[in-house]
């Protein structure tokens, strides 16, 4: 067999794209899985909006959907954590990761491909949810702001990619994902996504304000021009800054951890 030549970087990207394309073929072979992935957050949104919306105290002059939508956008990015973890753990447990590692492809492509595929999936899911928001009357104030908000949301998703990869490689067990999935809702509730931290007991409110999800959601509300909860604390006052800082910190920490773990699979 004749194989193609190329530099290491070229192959890292080309192989990464090939690995990502595997997920795109999954979408084509199992379109219902993709549809369900888009519909699930929409259903949660509608349930929260119509069932609980009337009971939740919202900032003066806002309706609950205006307030809820940025929270749901953030939640959806958080759900990506278990999505990445399950994909990585499944490949590791089924020997697919080992097959890749025994092949003359770029080793980094396994992680790069996962990142590309999951980010594309999140773009799709977020687009579906944005459309749902527009349908129920949520409106961003400016296009520029909206693009900024979407960028910050995807930045959070990008950081959680590496956390998901780390956890997937660490457990190598798709069953362990249940634990992470179970934690996603509490983490989401313990933020400003659904209710105001100010209404929580003091210490819970403080944890909730420092939740990275809160920073992203508050920054998204600010950039979308949707009314937020405000809040006097430093972290609430610097939401946009923290919506950049938190994901960068998470990315750096878990990128290093997951790459190290991947390289040490041969121990």
């Amino acid at each position, binding site marked *: 067999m004749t*194989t193609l030549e190329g530099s290491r970087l070229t192959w890292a990207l080309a192989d990464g794209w090939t690995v990502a394309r*595997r997920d795109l*073929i*999954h979408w084509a*072979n199992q379109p219902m899985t993709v549809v369900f992935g888009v519909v699930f957050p929409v259903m949660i949104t509608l349930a929260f909006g119509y069932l609980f919306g009337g009971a939740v105290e919202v900032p003066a002059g806002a309706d609950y959907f205006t307030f809820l939508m940025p929270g749901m956008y953030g939640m959806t990015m958080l759900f990506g954590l278990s999505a990445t973890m399950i994909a990585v753990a499944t490949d590791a447990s089924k*020997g697919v990761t*080992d097959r890749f590692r025994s*092949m*003359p492809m770029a080793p980094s492509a396994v992680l790069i491909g996962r990142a590309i595929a999951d980010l594309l999936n999140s773009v799709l899911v977020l687009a579906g949810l944005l459309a749902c928001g527009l349908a129920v009357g949520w409106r961003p104030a400016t296009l520029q702001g909206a693009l900024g908000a979407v960028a910050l949301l995807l930045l959070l998703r990008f950081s959680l990619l590496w956390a998901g990869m780390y956890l997937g490689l660490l457990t190598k067990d798709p069953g362990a994902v249940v634990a992470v999935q179970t934690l996603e809702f509490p983490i989401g509730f313990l933020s400003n996504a659904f209710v105001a931290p100010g209404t929580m007991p003091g210490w819970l409110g403080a944890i909730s304000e420092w939740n990275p999800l809160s920073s992203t959601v508050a920054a998204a509300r600010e950039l979308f021009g949707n009314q937020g909860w405000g809040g006097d604390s430093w972290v609430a006052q610097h939401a946009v800054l923290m919506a950049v800082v938190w994901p960068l910190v998470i990315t750096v920490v878990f990128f290093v951890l997951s790459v190290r773990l991947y390289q040490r699979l*041969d121990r």
Partner: protein
Amino acid sequence: MTAVLARDLRKTYGDKAALDGIDLDVGRGTVCGLLGPNGAGKTTAVRILTTLLRPSGGRAEVAGFDVTSQPRQVRRSIGLVGQQTAVDEVLTGRQNLELFGRLYHLGAAAARARAEELLERFGLEHQGPAKEYSGGMRRRLDLAAGMILAPPVLFLDEPTTGLDPRSRAEIWRAVRDLVAGGTTVLLTTQYLEEADQLADRISVIDAGRVVAEGTPDALKAKLGGDRLDVVVHDPARLAEAAGIVGGAASGPAEVDRDTRHVSAPVSERVQALTEVLAALAAAGIEAEDVALRRPTLDEVFLNLTNAGGGAR
């Protein structure tokens, strides 16, 4: 020429040795069987030879490349069919092979052509996703994925564990075809019969060490070859029957009172069987069952470990 070479290969986890210094010499174009029970170190050896695991000591070469210092060259020279079926179950057979072809850096057209060729060769023209495949088909797809670059050395880690007899025969046929085409194969197995069927040479591994090495025939001769089993109807005549069987056998007869079983190794199988049948009939001992059989793996290990560790 040596296709796979290992010298004093070791892998330790803490103070536990998974591989306790093994040597291997697999000639080019031959089949080497690593035979041993679960936990003997077979998979550890394969994982080191396929660059998935770093050895703690010793050295190994595959297709002339060192597994620790030249992993990329090794990966270009090998195919690995691991214990699990490592194919994407959502993808069709064709999509799997094309994907792996691209990752082996065949161009798009070459990957497509190679996939086509392998699908035909391994009888995998089913259109649906791999999860619809039977166990045997999935293993063949796995084998095809390992053969994309037509590598000179192929590693098969328990290729037929969990397969039904028909699928097992299919895999054996596929492996024989590959070997006929010049591929060197290193396979691990728990089944003596499988090693006997496929391997030119067998290394018996136990507790991370090679306890015996040789051609299947040489090993069998060393282990006393086949065994003759007789089930006696009347327990009172067991001792007498043991005497008759022992007289025709190449080793001492073992007696199990509970099952009224007499068993002994025989070298000349047909002659021993004829002698024993005639002697039993002459003595008027009624046998419920008489059978010639291969020694079980248990007996191989009992024999090898009792004999003071064989080669080492």
